[in-house]
């Protein structure tokens, strides 16, 4: 955040050495632009993607916590963005969230020749296994786990998958929609009519998640596939954002600040911090644009009346 007379605690999270490759790109809150196309097996014609992705991300300690246990990954070139919110019985919360994002990306890359659904399933399973194995290898990490929310853009489709209470939102045509349903105690109470939304806001069960990676051998994510339209803005976030910031304010940030994703991301973080910043806050924002036609070589001067007419008609 810039030196504008307001600042929040720096992200002091420790990065384990085994995810150095990821860490090098992940900890920077940078912006990447890329055509959303994942490499295809050789020989197969890649579908012409008519869209581009712009990505920005931030992860912030918040104003109360001492460690950042969230992780995120953005790989705009491959169209992969994800956030994870680690938790632990003793320690290892940040280990779990980083293992999850790193393993997810590796597995998606390895599974490029699978159908998106199968590849996503395999990637979540791999992340789950990686956490369980690491916890078995190091008893101090026993009981660690993490949420994980993924948006994987492939041309004009996006695969959304999640476990836990990290969310994916979509801003489209003036409306904010939530594309994920929390795996949380409060969500299940709401769905069963056991709790009102007013109660859900103040409930002390808000921190209870009912499904995470790292808790059991079998762990299935919720999966969804959606069409991607130019003008869409996607937001992936941990509960440090959505627990404190109302949907209306999230919508305002995505709408008004869409042309400047870095500002959108830092503003969402600032909103959560203004409301107490009680948890780590991680956001990834993705804007979808129509790909501009590559600039052609300057055309010869239009000749005569028809040439003049053609330029007028924009043909």
């Amino acid at each position, binding site marked *: 955040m810039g030196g504008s007379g307001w600042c929040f605690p720096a992200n002091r999270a420790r990065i384990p050495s085994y995810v150095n490759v990821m860490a090098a790109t992940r900890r920077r809150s940078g912006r990447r632009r890329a055509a959303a196309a994942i490499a295809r097996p050789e020989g197969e014609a890649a579908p012409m993607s008519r869209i581009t992705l712009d990505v920005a991300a931030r992860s912030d300690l918040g104003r109360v916590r001492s460690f950042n246990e969230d992780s995120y990954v953005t790989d705009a070139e491959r169209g992969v963005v994800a956030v994870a*919110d680690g938790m*632990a019985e003793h320690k290892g919360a940040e280990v779990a969230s980083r293992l999850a994002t790193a393993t997810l990306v590796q597995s998606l890359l390895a599974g490029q020749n699978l159908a998106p659904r199968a590849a996503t399933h395999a990637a979540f399973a791999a992340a789950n296994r990686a956490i369980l194995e690491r916890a078995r290898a190091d008893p101090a990490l026993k009981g660690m786990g993490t949420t994980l929310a993924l948006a994987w853009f492939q041309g004009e489709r996006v695969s959304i998958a999640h476990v836990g209470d990290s969310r994916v939102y979509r801003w489209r045509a003036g409306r904010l929609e939530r594309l994920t349903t929390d795996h949380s105690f409060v969500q299940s109470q709401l769905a069963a009519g056991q709790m009102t939304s007013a109660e859900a806001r103040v409930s002390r069960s808000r921190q209870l998640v009912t499904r995470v990676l790292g*808790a059991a051998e079998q762990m299935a994510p919720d999966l969804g596939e959606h069409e991607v339209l130019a003008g869409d803005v996607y937001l992936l976030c941990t509960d440090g954002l959505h627990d404190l910031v109302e949907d209306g304010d999230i919508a305002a940030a995505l709408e008004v600040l869409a042309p400047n994703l870095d500002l959108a991301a830092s503003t969402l973080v600032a909103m959560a911090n203004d409301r107490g910043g009680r948890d780590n806050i991680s956001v990834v924002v993705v804007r979808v644009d129509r790909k501009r036609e590559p600039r052609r070589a300057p055309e010869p001067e239009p000749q005569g009346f028809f040439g003049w007419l053609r330029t007028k008609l924009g043909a």
Partner: protein
Amino acid sequence: MAKLVATRAGAALGSWFIERDRVVIGRAEGVGIRLEDQAVSKQHAAIELVGNDHILHDLDSANGTFVNGTRIARHLMRHGDVVEIIDFQLRYVDHKSVVGQDGERTMIFHASDAGTAAGPLGRSPGADARALDLKLPEGVLRVAGQDGGREIALDRALVALGRRGDEYAAIFRRPQGYFIARVEGKPPRVNGKPIPDDWQRLAAGDLIQVGLEKFELALAAPR
């Protein structure tokens, strides 16, 4: 651990920790919290643990159960709530709900340990509520020039100024005041000076220029 601190007509009666998943309040012998008065029903109300919340239920009592002055059938207890039964007052004290030094730390406990809460994986109890009573500034932008006299309400988190794809800025309403930033195009000017990137705080009377449009920030007196 949460507890109820009881008083009657200003006199302290003692306090009860809520240790069980269900605690009955009433006149009958053997209930968890016994209030000895004929006007109290034998089983008057109950507090149940649901997830990390205590839910207070009135058990169809003759004279009703009130929380903070309102009669309730069911109520999610929050730190500081006062339960009134006849002239007994039971204050709900739950220090866990006040944000600790390490905030809302994330922790797992295994499903098998989770007891009554249908085995959710858990993190530490959430602090009580979001800070919904944010104090926000009240202000408007007065449009200068040809459109003079027109006002733009600054009653939302973000208000856009200028034109997309051109000179485009935004005003951000925060507890600390109003802030302005360039979103795209040339930076907006405040009192004639282009502002550096990122949010810059505005003061009452600041003259803002975005593209050819000019505005003056007017703030309501803080209440």
